[in-house]
């Protein structure tokens, strides 16, 4: 038995240390003796989403983003079926935007997204950049997620569940106090940092969900997270005092 991770477009979407999310997921499985395989899927590589337990998609620059939208658009039915079936997904920044209905340019043109989740993004007039702290409830546990955001688009949820509430920083749009989005086992966020290493509660929850979907007991053995907690707390303290 092994957990299979799909890292989508690592050649194109690797801004801001996003691969740290995959490293974190994989290491926390391995430290518990769970076998993990990572497959990197790039443009035109065949992919069967139903074969995976965890899918990660990061952010890229505009040009890369549009290449990917086209490539992923051609595979959207299989991805949608996997998502509806409970595939665990983490989408960051540009990858997050891609899953929504559309992106509205400053000229008012709407570029279609994959439409997997019911939200939309519009171009903002300034980039939202800086450290972020978000209060979130992950698997019934209240936790403070920390990260760094850097995005030009402002995302608005149509009643979709957010990942959490912004305690410091901008989040989805700098206006409604929400950050990220959740739908079934899909988790979206603007937080780089990367997100998972300093927020092990979330990482472990993603692992647990992936195991649960495979029909395997979800009790994860505890790890020594003292460095993780120290790193998380140092940022929480800096931002919130």
């Amino acid at each position, binding site marked *: 038995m092994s957990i299979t991770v799909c890292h989508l477009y690592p050649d194109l979407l690797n801004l*801001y*240390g996003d691969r740290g999310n995959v490293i974190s997921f994989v290491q926390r499985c391995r430290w518990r003796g769970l076998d993990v395989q990572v497959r990197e899927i790039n443009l035109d590589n065949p992919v069967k989403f139903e074969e995976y337990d965890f899918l990660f998609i990061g952010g890229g620059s505009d040009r890369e983003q549009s290449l990917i939208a086209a490539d992923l658009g051609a595979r959207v039915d299989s991805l949608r079926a996997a998502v509806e079936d409970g595939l665990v997904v983490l989408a960051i920044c540009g990858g997050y935007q891609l899953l929504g209905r559309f992106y509205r340019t400053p000229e008012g043109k709407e570029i279609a997204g994959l439409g997997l989740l019911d939200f939309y993004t519009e171009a903002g007039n300034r980039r939202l950049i800086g450290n972020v702290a978000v209060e979130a409830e992950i698997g019934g546990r209240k936790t403070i997620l920390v990260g760094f955001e850097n995005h030009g688009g402002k995302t608005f949820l149509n009643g979709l569940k957010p990942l959490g509430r912004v305690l410091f920083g901008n989040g989805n749009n700098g206006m409604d106090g929400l950050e990220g989005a959740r739908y079934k086992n899909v988790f979206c966020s603007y937080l780089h*940092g990367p997100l998972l290493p300093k927020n092990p509660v979330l990482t472990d929850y993603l692992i647990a969900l992936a195991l649960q979907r495979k029909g395997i007991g979800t009790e994860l053995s505890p790890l020594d997270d003292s460095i993780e907690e120290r*790193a998380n707390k140092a940022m929480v303290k800096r931002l919130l005092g």
Partner: protein
Amino acid sequence: MSLRLILAVLAAKLVMHISRLLGKGRGSSLPGMLALRICPDLLGHFENQPRTATIMVTGTNGKTTTNNMLAGILEREGYQVVANREGANLITGVATAFIRSSSILGRVRCDYAVLEVDEAAFTGVTKWIKPRLVVIINFFRDQLDRYGELDTTIKNVLAAVKQLPDSTVLILNADDPLVARLARESGYHSKFYGVRPVQELSGNVAYSREAKFCPFCGHALEYNIYLYSQLGDYKCTQCDFARPQPDIEAESVTTGVGGTTAFLNDDKNKWQLNLPVRGMHNLYNALAAFTAAYLLGVKPETAVAGLETYTPATGRMESFRYGSKQVVLVLVKNPTGFNQALSGLLTGEVEQDVMIAINDNAADGRDISWLWDVDFEILTRTPEKFKRFICSGQRAEDMALRLKYAGVSPTIIEIENDFSRAVDSALNGESGAVSVLVTYTALWPVEKILSRRAERMKQSVDYSVPSVS
């Protein structure tokens, strides 16, 4: 000659003098900043003063080293050279370099101006000073880079180049597609340098690669060999864009602890080079400097001799001695430079304590996610070489976390935010050598602490670690 110019030069020289008296900082940009405020067209007065030519070096990593190598070669040939040697590469640093060599009336006596110019400052500086040669060494993404900013940087450099006289010659790194493309895009006469792509040199650092697509047709670039980062032997899968055949090519390259050896080949002759600093990136810096000197008509033998006596600029890589221990201080500022510094650590022969200080001030980059693009995983290949990792600075905890996830045992990772205590811990460890890797705003405070505790070595030693600029 204007009164403003004289006032500007006087004021700048006064500031230089005072900062020297106070022993403060290096005073390499403040005087120029003041002078430019008094006389905004200051650089225009200097433009035509170098008797022979002005050469500019731009790109991401290795500008300072390349520039100092070229200045050293020209001086060895007997020329008088004005250069901004301390890595002050904005318009203020360029102004300071001229003022330092000028009389009070703003007269500079020199044959060449050899100027390192930041990619982002290139447009502003070339507005005033037209170089005869422009050396473009590489383009890597900096940690400060935002979405697509590297593209913008390249476009800006290209636009500025196109404003230069038609007689300008470009010296380009053939192995970096982001640089080599500028020959065709600008239409200027271009000379190329590169390293012969042979399998033995193939790097294994897989991340932080930038060039994925052909700049001309948008199709994927295919690599025969990667040397490091996106440097290598590439060609477009669709059109005829490919690594150009270099005019000066390094071959039979060997790199070791003692340095780097290679033959430099101009298609007719070969010169053996024993470079006292190690690493492929330093070979590239030397190649760039050699090619520029070659085009300026310097005897190749002199150029080689100049490179062989090269000593790294202070602040980029410094050596100290603490008791019997060798202590090396290195600046790291982006994934490519950090990867090079790490491969330097691996060639060390004695077990070492490693201190890494990460700050996140504006000059370091507020976002430190780039640490996850650095291949710390290579440190776990030779665990016997590392006694402890002491993480320091504002983001010490993040650095510790990165090491943990790279596979370094948490039992040998220490977190000590305070520089002073971190340095003490590193110096007083049990191992025989200490390496200190720091981001930009950690450099001066850590250097200051080290120079109080340990003895500064004047000469570079064979244990040289890559310099980054």
